[in-house]
Structure formats: C-alpha cells, structure tokens
C-alpha cells in the first residue's frame, strides 16, 4: 500500500500542490486525471523525490517517510522501491534495450550478470521487445522505446510503478501498443500502478480507482464508473465533457 498525506509543493510563489492525500492499495491501478497545471505530474514526481515536496508524509507499505526532511538514505530507499515510466521515455541513450533493463538489476539490486540477463529478457519478451533487445534507443520508435521503459520499470519489481503521461509524446497510432502493454501488465503482474494520463478509455477499462485533480487539490476520488460516467463535481464534469466525443 502507498499512502500520501497532505502533500504541499510550491514553485516560487506558485503553489502547485495544496495538501493532496491519496491512498493506493497494493496491486491496484490508480489513474490520476486532470487538466494540465493541476499538479498531477508534480505529485507523481514528488513521490520519488524528483521534485521533493515541501511538506507531506508518505507511507510505503509499513515505512513512514517525512517528505520534507528525508535523508539521502531514505530518498535512495524510496527510489529503490519505486520505478517511473517517463513521458519522454528517457531510456539510457548509450545502452541497448537489453542493457537499459539490466542496468538497474545489476547496479542497484546487485543481481548476478546471468540472472539479470534472464530477468531482463523475460520482461522484454513481456512487452514484445525481445526481437529488438540489441537496438539502441535511437533505432527504436517512440512506442518501442516506451515499451522498453515499461520493461525497465517492471524488471525492478518495485512496490509501485509511477507512469508520468506515458503516451502523451507518442504519435496517435503508437498510443495503442503502449496502452495494450500497460493493460496486460496490470492484469498479469499485479503491480501497484499510479498512472497520470489523459487516456480516459484506459482509466475506464483498467483503473481500480480514479482520482480527479484540479488546481493542486483532489476534487473527486472513486471507482472509474462513478467518476467517468457519473461525476458528482461540476469541475470533473466539465473536464470530462471535453473527452466525451472521443
């Protein structure tokens, strides 16, 4: 289980997170929706300290972290128990697909080379990229790169995988293949996933919980059917209306 309590974050005088609290049960998929500037990406990035929160507490399984006063060791601990899939893939440019997935296993988890290879190939197979394992990122399409990014995150067996708009930078025809993989792993891997996305369809089909954020606060939380088909809040309704004709 991962639980965030009262997250605050400001950039200069702009308050981006104004006391956000969410709870994500183990093995569930939570989708965070909201207009741009609502703070959803910042929230995600504050979980693994890429954008340290000014205030807030996080409970990761049984460990409690004070987000504003975490030591270097605690930050490393959180990062080693979480993984992130980035909007711009951010594969290590100087490494092949296989090396990208192996890197964390060998360097961070101190796994043996052979064991890491087997595991990396297992996850590349899972995302359908095994036939491209020796390709460098520059030789892969955006969708392929993102699938490797997902394999890299999955292979670490993190307690939670953070997806930061994983399909926003993709060409429309490549979005589908990445969403398919994400659906597949949600079903097969039983991973805890927090997904920031604009893909309402994905939220409806896959999410166990949908959170709607706007202006740095959580407006509404609930099951996808309730939030998407029948939102209580006016702001949620307005936001979703823009997607209804998709």
């Amino acid at each position, binding site marked *: 289980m991962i639980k965030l309590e009262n997250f605050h974050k400001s950039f200069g005088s702009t308050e981006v997170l104004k006391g956000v609290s969410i709870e994500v049960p183990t093995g569930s998929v939570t989708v965070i929706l909201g207009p741009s500037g609502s703070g959803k990406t910042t929230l995600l990035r504050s979980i693994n*300290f890429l954008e340290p929160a000014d205030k807030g507490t996080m409970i990761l399984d049984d460990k409690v972290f004070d987000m504003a006063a975490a030591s270097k060791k605690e930050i*490393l601990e959180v990062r080693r128990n979480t993984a992130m899939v980035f909007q711009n893939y*951010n594969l*290590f440019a100087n490494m092949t697909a296989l090396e990208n997935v192996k*890197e*964390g296993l060998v*360097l*961070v988890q101190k796994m043996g080379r052979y064991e890491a290879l087997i595991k990396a190939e297992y996850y590349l197979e899972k995302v359908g990229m095994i036939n491209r394992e020796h*390709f460098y990122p520059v030789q892969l399409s955006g969708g392929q790169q993102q699938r490797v990014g997902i394999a890299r995150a999955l292979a670490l067996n993190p307690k939670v995988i*953070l997806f930061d708009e994983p399909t926003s930078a993709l060409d429309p025809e490549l979005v589908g293949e990445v969403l398919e993989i994400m659906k597949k792993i949600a079903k097969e891997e039983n991973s805890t996933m927090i997904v920031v996305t604009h893909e309402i369809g994905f939220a409806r089909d896959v999410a166990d919980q949908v959170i709607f954020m706007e202006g740095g606060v959580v407006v509404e939380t609930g099951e996808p059917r309730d939030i998407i088909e029948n939102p209580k809040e006016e702001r949620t309704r307005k936001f979703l209306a823009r997607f209804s004709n998709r």
Partner: protein
Amino acid sequence: MDNFLDPVFLLEIFEHLIKYVPITLGLAVGTMIMSCLLALMVTILRYKKVPILGKIGDIYVLLGRALPSMILIYLAFFGIPVLLMAVSGTNKSAMLLSGIPPIAFAALGLTLHTGAYLAEIFRGALQSVNVGQTEAELSIGMTWNQAFFRIILPQAAVFATPMMANQFLNLLKGTSIAFMISVIELFGAANVLASNNNAYLEVYIVTACLYWSTSICFEKLASVLEYNLSYFKRCTSK
C-alpha cells in the same frame, strides 16, 4: 641565391628537427592527460556544486582562461621556487627544485591553462546530456557516481571530443612557448638552428611542415575516437 630552398639542405634540416618532435609530442600529450584529469575534477566539483571547492573551481576556470599561458609558465618556473623559499625560509627546497627539468614547469603551466579550457568544454558537454537521463537514473535508485560514470559521461564524451581535439591542437602549437624557459622542443630547436645557419626561411618551412603533419595525425585520431564513442548514435544494430 643559387641554393634557394635547396632540397638537400631542407632534408638535413628535416633530419635534425624531427628528433625534437617526440619532445613536443611528449609535452603536449603529457599536458593533455594531466589537463583532462584536472578538468574532470574541477568539472565534477562545479557540477555537484560542492561548497567552497566548487567556487574555487569557478575562480580557477576564470583565471586559467584569462591569463596568457606564457604568464602561467613563467609563474610556475620562476614563481614556485621563490614561493617555496619564502614559505620555508631557506634555500634548501629551492635547491631541490633546481633538479627538476624546465619541461616539467612548462607542463605545469600549460596544464593550468588547458585544464581551464577543458573544464568549460566538459561543462558544456554535460549540459548537452538530456536532463531526463539523470531523472531516469535517479528514479531507479542509482547513486550519483553510478549515474555519472555509466550514463552521463559516455554521452557527454561524444559531444566533448571534437572540442577536445581542437583544444589539443591548440596545445600542440602552444608548447612552442616552452622555449621561453629554455626547453628545447621543436620550435626551440628550430630557433637555434635558424640563427646558427642564418637560414630562417628553410628552417621555419620545415618546422611548419612538421607541426602540420603532426596535427593531421591527431585530427584523424580524433575523428576515429569520435566515431567509436558515438556507437549508440548510429542507426545500425550492434
């Protein structure tokens, strides 16, 4: 002038001067290696914004690029003995220094000069690496050192190589001022030869050719290096 650019004479000059190419090369390559180490250290201190040391790095880079390399060489050659004498209060340490060949002081002065330029080249190269790379490393829990040496440096190196080659060629020619503190390298030997034989044109033409051909070798070497370092940017599989 019946012996104007006499080929036999030119060949004699060539045979004499080519013996000094290894000295120039040794000075340049040795300086380059030390400069790279110095610059890498300074770059890391500045990149990590280490308190005090990072600031010292900033000041060094400013000074090192602002001062003529000849002043740095003079400071090393004449300044260090005086400094040691002042600090120790005796002549003893300065006497010890007199056993050190001038070429070492030249290397020190040139290293200070080149190191400052390389530090700026490295800084630019690090900035060329997408910030997303760092975020990806951190997100999987790599330590700073792991991330820097495995991901950032190999990518920055590709960017830095052409400019480093540039800097090296500059240095190769810059070694000629070591003559000012009595180091007899290629240019120094040429000066002596030219004035002894009163054959300035011939000697300097041969010297120019020697510098030129050496430079060409290193240009080729740099492009091979750049090609090999950029293996991950090519659009063919491994």
